[in-house]
């Protein structure tokens, strides 16, 4: 940086008709970085005609009038109306070398907004003491930490000094606790008397007193002023506690999964605005040349601003997590210590870095049925789509990023075609959410044949990425008495159509393992999750989840799968009926929920 900086972005003051040529208006001040620096002030704007009315003293930064202000000067200015004050905007630059004109576009500048009032300055009797002491609007100054002491603001109000010539005005800082600020009595400049450290205190709340000695007495006017301390990157990052995290990668191997958390602290602020700010940005580097590690792992870095843990001064807490960049194969098995170097790129000192460690263990995942054979008993009365049971390789429900599919095969292949047709009775669907296979009744006609009462299958599980397979034995036996059957292919009705217990429990609905629909009686008055309804299997429907079997046919469980608008009082997430009023029933995916009141004689028309 160029060292010199302005402790405020904007200077404002009023100017009046009749102010004399050569009279001072305000003083622009610049702070120094090095003791030897010397500011050269210059006026930038030359676009507007009124610029020539002013000049600035190169050394002191005091802005003077070049001419006495006339009434005609006010009306010569362009602005929307004749009455309100007209704002004149100037731009002042500062350089540590004698200025050249082009510097205005390169060096820091500050804006001076003068409100030209279409009137002469108030007389001594008209003006309040506070107006003599302080401008109406003054902004809070700021100084950068670790900088040279020096003046940061001229407290005197030049434009009002000559209004009451017999008054003497002086300023002071009311020092509540010892603050490194004072007023230079000779110049009335507010001075910071020592270097300040933002990490110790971010803002100083000063009370400035203006003492006005009139002919008769001494009056005091107080004004509070907040001096904000600007931050610079003068603290290196540090670890508070462990710099090593143990990480185990096993069943969850999906891209994007994050493991472990390591914290790095920095007493400096990390600005997010403007976005291209680089101050105090920590850059990290994976300390490995192993391409496998680089291809599969990355570090996720987030930071947030905190105050309490840094003694009520803003600082930054950085979080680092290990992240999988892609799905990891089930066969991968490794252990390694991964280093991650965090570097505070804008910290000048040598200790701007911290080394973090992730102690990583990747275990393989076996695809096997843990010495289990499956055996399910199904009622002869079960209707099509009745769920029989689930098959699952070891730990399958913990898998993430591991894709396993299941298939059924007949054990004894060389049996007659007739015998083979028995095996249409059972089928299998994939449940993607929990990597299980769901067995269900596929064809009820074959159930009745004596030779089809006990069916032996082989369940084959296959992991998709490496084609690893596992097999196990499955026996499905059909017991109990079958329902009397009409000749043609039975089209089972949807249980959900039934609105009363009697109808419901008498119906052989689709997907009913017992061969009969089941009635759920709700109790609540309004819209409730436990609405009354008729279901093929209360264990799976309604349960708020349109599973692999239910999604095969809308008539199985429209309460979970319907996407059409629901008629009556309801609540819904994405699909199905999350909550309903009274009894909910559906006709092919179109659902109704209504109070289940006795049918009184409300006439339906012009009786």
């Amino acid at each position: 940086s160029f060292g010199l900086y302005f402790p405020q972005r904007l200077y404002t003051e009023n100017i009046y008709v009749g102010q004399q040529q050569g009279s001072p208006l305000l003083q622009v001040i610049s702070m120094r970085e090095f003791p030897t620096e010397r500011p050269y002030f210059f006026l930038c704007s030359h676009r507007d005609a009124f610029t020539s009315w002013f000049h600035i003293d190169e050394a002191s930064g005091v802005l003077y009038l070049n001419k006495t202000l006339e009434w005609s000067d006010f009306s010569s200015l362009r602005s929307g109306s004749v009455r309100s004050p007209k704002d004149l905007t100037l731009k002042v630059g500062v350089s540590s070398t004698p200025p050249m004109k082009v510097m205005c576009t390169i060096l820091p500048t500050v804006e001076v907004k003068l409100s030209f009032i279409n009137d002469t300055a108030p007389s001594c009797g008209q003006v309040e003491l506070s107006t003599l002491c302080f401008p109406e609007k003054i902004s809070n100054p700021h100084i950068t930490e670790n900088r040279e002491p020096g003046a940061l603001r001229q407290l005197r109000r030049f434009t009002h000094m000559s209004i009451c010539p017999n008054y003497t005005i002086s300023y002071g800082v009311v020092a509540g606790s010892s603050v490194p600020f004072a007023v230079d009595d000779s110049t009335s400049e507010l001075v910071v008397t020592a270097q300040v450290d933002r990490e110790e205190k971010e803002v100083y709340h000063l009370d400035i007193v203006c003492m006005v000695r009139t002919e008769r007495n001494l009056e005091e006017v107080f004004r509070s002023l907040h001096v904000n301390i600007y931050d610079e990157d003068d603290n290196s990052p540090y670890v508070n506690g462990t710099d090593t995290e143990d990480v185990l990668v096993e069943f969850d191997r999906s891209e994007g999964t994050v493991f472990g958390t390591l914290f790095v602290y920095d007493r400096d602020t990390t600005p997010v605005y403007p976005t291209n700010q680089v101050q105090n940005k920590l850059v990290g580097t994976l300390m490995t040349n192993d391409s496998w590690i680089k291809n599969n792992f990355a570090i996720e870095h987030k930071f947030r601003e905190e105050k309490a843990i840094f003694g009520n001064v803003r600082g930054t807490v950085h979080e680092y997590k290990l992240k999988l960049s892609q799905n990891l194969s089930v066969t991968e098995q490794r252990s390694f210590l991964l280093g991650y170097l965090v570097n505070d790129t804008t910290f000048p000192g040598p200790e701007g870095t911290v080394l973090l460690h992730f102690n990583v263990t990747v275990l393989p995942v076996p695809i096997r049925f843990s010495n289990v054979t499956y055996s399910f008993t199904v009622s002869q009365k079960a209707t099509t789509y009745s769920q029989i049971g689930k098959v699952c390789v070891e730990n399958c429900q913990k898998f993430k990023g591991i894709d396993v599919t299941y298939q059924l095969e007949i054990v004894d292949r060389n049996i007659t075609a007739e015998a083979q047709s028995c095996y249409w009775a059972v089928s299998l669907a994939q449940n993607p959410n929990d990597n299980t296979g769901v067995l269900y009744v596929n064809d009820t006609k074959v159930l009745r044949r004596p030779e089809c009462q006990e069916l032996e299958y082989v369940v084959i599980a296959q992991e998709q990425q490496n084609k690893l397979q596992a097999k196990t034995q499955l026996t499905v036996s059909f017991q109990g008495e079958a329902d009397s059957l009409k000749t043609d292919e039975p089209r089972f009705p949807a249980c959900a159509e039934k609105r009363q217990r009697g109808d419901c429990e008498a119906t052989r609905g689709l997907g009913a393992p017992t061969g009969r629909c089941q009635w759920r009686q709700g109790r609540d008055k309004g819209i409730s999750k436990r609405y009354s309804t008729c279901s093929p299997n209360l264990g799976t429907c309604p349960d708020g989840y349109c599973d692999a079997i239910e999604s095969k046919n809308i008539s199985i469980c429209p309460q979970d799968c319907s996407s059409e608008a629901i008629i009556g009082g309801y609540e819904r997430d994405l699909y199905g009926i999350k909550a309903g009023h009274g009894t909910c029933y559906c006709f092919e995916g179109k659902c109704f929920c209504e109070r289940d009141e006795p049918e009184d004689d409300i006439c339906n028309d012009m009786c």
Partner: protein
Amino acid sequence: RAKKGSKPCSLRKLVVTVSQLGIAFVSDETIAFHYCSGECDASRKNYDFVLEAMKKKGLLRKNKARHRPCCRPTAYEEDFLFLDNSFQYKTIHEFSAKACGC
């Protein structure tokens, strides 16, 4: 409420003589008369639920409005030409349903 086992709104048939139609035509010719019958519960909308509820709460007089879709013809068969018992050809317009709906 749909009565137990009542079928949804659909086309039904009745074979009658023209005289039996009861609109003063006298002819022994026989005709298949189609009409609409059955319940319309599956076509109800929130409108029907609200209307029913308002009637029950007395916000609306009971017979003021119909709170259930009705099973009615949505199309009629073409005109029917017949010879009456005094051997005059007569036509009856839109007397038999071709399709039903709620």
